[in-house]
């Protein structure tokens, strides 16, 4: 039994505002493969009196926090935040999936969810001559856990460094001193750990005198921009700066990429923060590149299932993978490259291409990688 006080919970999350229209469930990507039904959950919480048992709802861990529900709700209810809140309640009772437990503990101990040592966090950059961040530098480049540690992710970080160095952008990294941003910690419901991380990180950036920051991952961008206190620090995703550099001709492409490319909008860049045009602007500026759009583009983009802690959670229906559906959609456009701008999307889509044996047909690349290639 995992009981919560449903009445107080419903009030705290403004669930009474819901008119049960079903738009959330109708647009939720997880309803394509699981029992997750946000609308029904809301009504159950509202009508449960006081005392609602969360145990019969394993689908709570299927949610990728893509925010489709919250963005489309006509009454401004956020079923996504409700699910995060329910996860919080479960976490508080210690009833967490073992994979998640490991990731959370690792984040606490080692500053990353991958159970890898702090001392290796900056290793990817040693031979690149990237400056360590000091006060007075224009930007802090916040690399993130996946681009720091994961070999596939490191390629993106290296590409980014090459691009911004070429453009003469004044930036530094924290290397081994960089700590996880906590985005997935919060989405997994570990509110206490997240609060601690916010305090630590905010303190660190203040001491370092950071005023502007850009990130590799839309998840890090989102959490620093929207969940951390507004401390006057300006946060951007790298595509926003890159698009500006391209438009101002501070970066020009002497090479070309003669490929048909389709772009997958990462949920945390697109749906969450409305950034659709900048990545496309960069791609369109690359000579020889032909950009085609999938039907599910922009606000209708199909979630890759990487967010909301899903990098560590298989969910209730591991056999079906939305990333595989997404790769099929990309192939159908005739594209040779499936471009995106998020390390989680890169990993999920890459894996899907391999699972489907489509490596000959289509390649998954981050926008940074493509831009760096065309330099």
């Amino acid at each position: 039994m995992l009981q919560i006080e449903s009445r107080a919970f419903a009030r705290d999350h403004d669930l009474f505002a819901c008119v049960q229209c079903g738009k959330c469930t109708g647009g939720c990507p997880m309803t394509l493969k699981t029992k997750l039904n946000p609308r029904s959950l809301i009504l159950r919480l509202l009508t449960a009196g006081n005392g609602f048992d969360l145990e019969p709802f394993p689908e709570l861990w299927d949610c990728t926090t893509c925010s489709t529900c919250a963005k489309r709700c006509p009454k401004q209810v956020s079923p996504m935040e409700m699910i995060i809140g329910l996860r919080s309640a479960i976490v508080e009772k210690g009833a967490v999936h073992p994979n998640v437990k490991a990731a959370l503990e690792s984040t606490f101990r080692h500053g990353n969810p991958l159970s890898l040592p702090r001392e290796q966090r900056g290793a990817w950059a040693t031979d690149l001559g990237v400056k360590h961040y000091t006060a007075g530098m224009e930007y802090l480049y916040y690399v993130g856990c996946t681009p720091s540690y994961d070999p596939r992710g490191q390629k993106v970080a290296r590409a980014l460094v090459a691009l911004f160095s070429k453009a003469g952008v004044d930036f530094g990294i924290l290397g081994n001193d960089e700590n996880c941003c906590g985005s997935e910690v919060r989405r997994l419901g570990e509110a206490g750990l997240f609060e601690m991380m916010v305090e630590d990180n905010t303190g660190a950036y203040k001491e370092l005198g950071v005023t502007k920051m850009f990130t590799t991952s839309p998840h890090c961008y989102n959490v620093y921009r929207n969940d951390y206190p507004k401390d006057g620090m300006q946060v951007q995703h790298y595509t926003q700066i890159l698009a500006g550099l391209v438009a101002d001709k501070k970066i020009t492409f002497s090479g070309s990429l003669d490929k048909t490319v389709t772009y997958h909008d990462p949920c945390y860049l697109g749906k969450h923060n409305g950034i659709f045009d900048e990545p496309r602007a960069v791609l369109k500026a690359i000579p020889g590149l032909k950009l085609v759009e999938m039907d599910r583009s922009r606000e209708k983009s199909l979630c890759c299932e990487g967010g909301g802690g899903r990098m560590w959670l298989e969910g209730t229906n591991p056999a079906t993978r939305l990333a595989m559906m997404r790769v099929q959609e990309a192939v159908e456009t005739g594209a040779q490259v499936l471009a995106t701008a998020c390390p989680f999307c890169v990993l999920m889509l890459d894996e899907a291409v391999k699972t489907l044996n489509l490596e000959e047909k289509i390649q998954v690349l981050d926008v940074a990688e493509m831009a760096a290639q065309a330099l």
Partner: protein
Amino acid sequence: MTATDVRKPAALIIGGGIAGIQSALDIADAGFKVYLVERSPSIGGRMSQLDKTFPTLDCSACILTPKMVDAGRHPNIELLTYSEVTEVTGQPGAFHAQIKKKPRYVDVDKCSGCGLCAAACRLTGKVSSDFNAGMGKRAAVYVPFPQAVPLKYTVDPNECIFLTRGVCGKTFKCKDACTAGAINFDQKEEFVEVEVATVINATGFDVFDATRRPELGYGGYPQVITTLEFERLASASGPTAGRISLNGNLPRRVVFIQCVGSRDVGLGAPWCSRVCCMAVAKQAHLAHERLPGAEITVFYIDIRAFGKGFEEFYDRVRHEGVLYRKGMPSEVLRRGDHLVVRAEDMLLGEMVDVEADLVVLAVGIAPRKDATQVAEMLHLRQDESGFFAEDHPKVRTVESSQPGIFLAGCCQGPKDIPDTVAHAKAAASAAMILLAQTEKAMVTSYAAN
């Protein structure tokens, strides 16, 4: 602007609710004489029975009483309360009407509205008050509510011991108490004849008789009441001075049930009554405000929050914690000292039993029981639902089937207050056109003579 210009044509308005009052004020402001006839002792109608109005939560009396006072004081309006129109003949521009003035048994010139008679009456606190929808009591001599216009007492001929049995003890308590000598049991009904150019019918509505849905327990369980009765409980001028209590107890669980006597083909009431979704939202809000900590549930089929500010008010009420559940309850049963409402919650897809201390039925708006009599008197067509038929459903909703006789307000179909006011003004416009044309014809013929 003089009220005594014999040549100026006049209008007759039947019904002194907000529709009749609004039409009267417009026509009178334009300079024409108006006879405003109301069958009950005071003008004000249904709106005077309401506590607060949606979506603004204006207190109904606060916005109505100034209009009532204006109508009572307007030099061009002759108020005939406690009167009924008995006959109308003639044609547009030249109608002849007969009005019966029922005896109040109180001399209105002497009565100051002090209320000593009612306090002294042998039946004080024993007669069911219609104004309070049967939730409160009054004496046999009464004013319907404290802000009545005119504020004159009336003896109820169906309750007064003297009038029903011929003798009231050794002495008339009311007469003894009255210092102005206003009680007069020798009064008789009087008939007056008036000549008018136009008639506006603004006779209003009745509510659905909830005993016709016996499975909901109205009439059987004291904890089941109608929205009209709830309104009286919530009203500062009501039997509990605004305290929403039953038998002295404040309910902790309130359940509202929409569409009782509306959208019901089997009961002969297929129409939507238009106002009940919002009326219930308002009452749910009042319950939330006055019964802290109470659980409030509304069972509905659709929520028709269509007007200006309505959806926003519906949003507000849900934010306050009122729970809306889609499903039409099939029955209300007793469980110990409280009730249980059985329904299918269609969105959960499950049967539910919701416990309640108070169940409020949103009764529909229906044509008045005497609508057919009025229709016959005025030769008006009624539509299938029994409301008065308009000449064209889109562009002539104030014209009746009789030229020169117009319709205003709920007698033509359910409306909320803003719709009623607009409709009444539209009827006034139509009437003013006829009055202006009649006046012109009169002037022309006078000049020609």
